[in-house]
């Protein structure tokens, strides 16, 4: 059959053995052996993850760049969405239902709770679709797949940081003074991040195999908004239900955020934070375990 007109490239056929001199001897010329086998638990995985850290950075950077391209008001969307939710919640829970806010302005209390909650919900929504959306990548290139949902969770941190700036502006507007508790905020941000990561990994892996989860997630996010103390303070939850209520890791996170931002007057139930931290740790461990177990079949399923 006639292929396109073709001249052989100017190259004398290479014979193994003659090229000792030009063989690359960079750091990549390591002689580590990789063994591929069915059901093998790859010990190189965590090493690979480190090697692919730049890809992680690039994927996160790509998602940030693309996120608001071809929208009219661009990054403003990251400001408008939480502000509108705050106004609605303040009116419904603060004005109409007249729930207590422990001496802080109701709007501030809602916003402080909204911060970690939107981190969680954006992370869960974006991560769960991330693998299915990068189907072409997964079926053509090898890299530790955990990078994709993890990058999605990191990207949701960007919106979170923007919201943090709005909160600062709001606090100035309300002339609300910070107290020493603010120094604990980084710890609770870390907890919010991990509380988002664990379930995200789990659901992402499930979504590749069972696309039903695409429909379940928006539902979880919507229910979770009311099951977590976003629009109201945890103090309205009856004492006898508190322990059960704390099993939702976002309870500890949100209470912690309020305590850090609005000061010790908000009160912080240390037991509920510890329960939240334990549940978060368990979720992260389970998420990673489950993801790793499913990972090998992703390319065949996606």
């Amino acid at each position, binding site marked *: 059959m*006639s292929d396109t007109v073709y001249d052989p490239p100017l190259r004398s056929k290479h014979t193994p053995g003659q090229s000792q001199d030009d*063989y690359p001897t960079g750091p990549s*010329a*390591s002689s580590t052996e*990789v063994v*591929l*086998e069915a059901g093998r638990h790859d010990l190189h995985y965590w090493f690979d993850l480190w090697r692919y850290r730049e890809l992680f950075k690039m994927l996160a950077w790509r998602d940030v760049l693309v996120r608001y391209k071809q929208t009219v008001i661009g990054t403003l969307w990251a400001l408008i969405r939480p502000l509108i939710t705050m106004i609605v919640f303040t009116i419904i829970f603060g004005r109409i239902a007249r729930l207590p806010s422990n001496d802080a302005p109701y709007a501030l209390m809602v916003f402080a709770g909204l911060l970690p909650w939107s981190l969680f919900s954006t992370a869960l929504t974006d991560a769960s679709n991330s693998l299915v959306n990068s189907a072409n990548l997964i079926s053509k*290139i090898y890299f530790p797949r955990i990078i994709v949902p993890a990058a999605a969770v990191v990207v949701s941190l960007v919106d979170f940081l923007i919201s943090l700036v709005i909160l600062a502006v709001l606090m100035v507007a309300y002339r609300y003074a910070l107290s020493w508790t603010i120094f604990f905020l980084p710890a609770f941000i870390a907890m919010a991040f991990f509380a988002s990561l664990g379930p995200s990994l789990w659901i992402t892996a499930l979504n590749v195999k069972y696309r039903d989860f695409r429909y379940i997630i928006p539902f979880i996010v919507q229910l979770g908004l009311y099951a977590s103390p976003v629009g109201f303070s945890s103090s309205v939850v009856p004492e006898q239900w508190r322990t059960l209520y704390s099993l939702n890791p976002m309870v500890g996170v949100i209470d912690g955020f309020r305590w850090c931002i609005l000061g010790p007057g908000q009160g912080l139930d240390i037991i509920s934070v510890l329960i939240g931290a334990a549940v978060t740790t368990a979720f992260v461990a389970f998420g990673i375990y489950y993801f790793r177990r499913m990972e090998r079949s992703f390319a065949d399923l996606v």
Partner: protein
Amino acid sequence: MERKTLQESIISVEGLSKRYMLGHVSPQRATATLRDAIQLESSNFARKMRDLVRGRQILQGDQIEEFWALKDVSFEVKRGEVVGIIGRNGAGKSTLLKILSRITEPTKGIVRLRGRIASLLEVGTGFHPELTGRENIFLNGSILGMTQKEIRGKFDEIVAFAEIEKFIDTPVKRYSSGMYVRLAFAVAAHLEPEILVVDEVLAVGDVEFQRRCLGKMGEIAGNGRTVLLVSHNTHAIRALCDSAIAMDKGQLIYSGETDKAIRLYEGSFARNGDASRVMVEDKARSIARDSRIKLRAISFKGSGTAILDEEFRICIEVEVFEPVSSVVFGVGFCAKSGARLLSCDSDYSGRPAYSLAPGLHDIECTFGQLPLAPGEYLLDVGCRSEGLVLYDETKEACVVEVVPPRNASPQLLQKYSTCMFKAIWTGAPHADA
């Protein structure tokens, strides 16, 4: 010591097999009654729930079939070798590359890789249309496993190779497809792994660019890197590879000399090519067949080989079990890569749809002047309803060899094109002169 490392195998594959589970929609579905449909759906639902509980993959369809894309493949590649992999469509080449590049896991068998591997299974994987050329170079480079430092060092070279200097800060969605492919290949061509795995990526872009790509591939191979190259382009394989692997139906049929592997590959097409009648009744089908009409055999009236520009007749034998009205037949000629070059359907040819009574029928298709250039082609034959519902179809059923007419200049026809056509040519002095 150095000598020894060069002789060791960098890739060793032992007993590699890969199974896929396929779901088929049963052919009865179209004609089923409501009761059958409910029964079918509920048994499917029960199966899906069982799979969900056992944590297994969910398959769409009514019948589940195992399919071995690779069966017990073993071979070794020495450090610094350039190995070609050839085989027909569905021979398992891509599956093999996917396992080697760690995208998917083998079902059985073991692979040992003693070096950093990079795979190029598709040009432009991970390109994002909204990002500019510059941003995509960095993104794609890191997806392919380059570090930011490496990419920065080669940035100018990549841009120059792709010839897109002017558009480097334009989003790639505004690129022409040629520019897009050039940029994508340019990034990939500057990878420097120890083992490079390449799948049919040379079949893109214009001829001039393909030539440069092959030159670049030759350069990579000449640098002592190990390369595995899948291609249907036997010229490229011959020019670039030290040795080759021939595959067929998931099995390795030969590993060794390039020329012999290519001969085996080309021979695999001609298996039934000598006979003037080819049975297709029992060949595997990719579609669910209709129970009313079946393609039995293909035969050639006159001779088995066709001559460019001369009459060529194909006879399709069909067996009809129940009367069918409005049947349309079609034949298609494909290149060995599987690309369809020429199609001829009876309805397009102006022939009213056939109404066939039960029994055997001979359907003849006559080309007045076959426009295909000399070479070997694969024949697809099928029949369908006027409403485009396929009844039966057999792909790559047999080989048709086209030879040049007796008085044609061989230089003119050799590797010139895939189609040769006669048109009306005229000439006259310009009216103003």
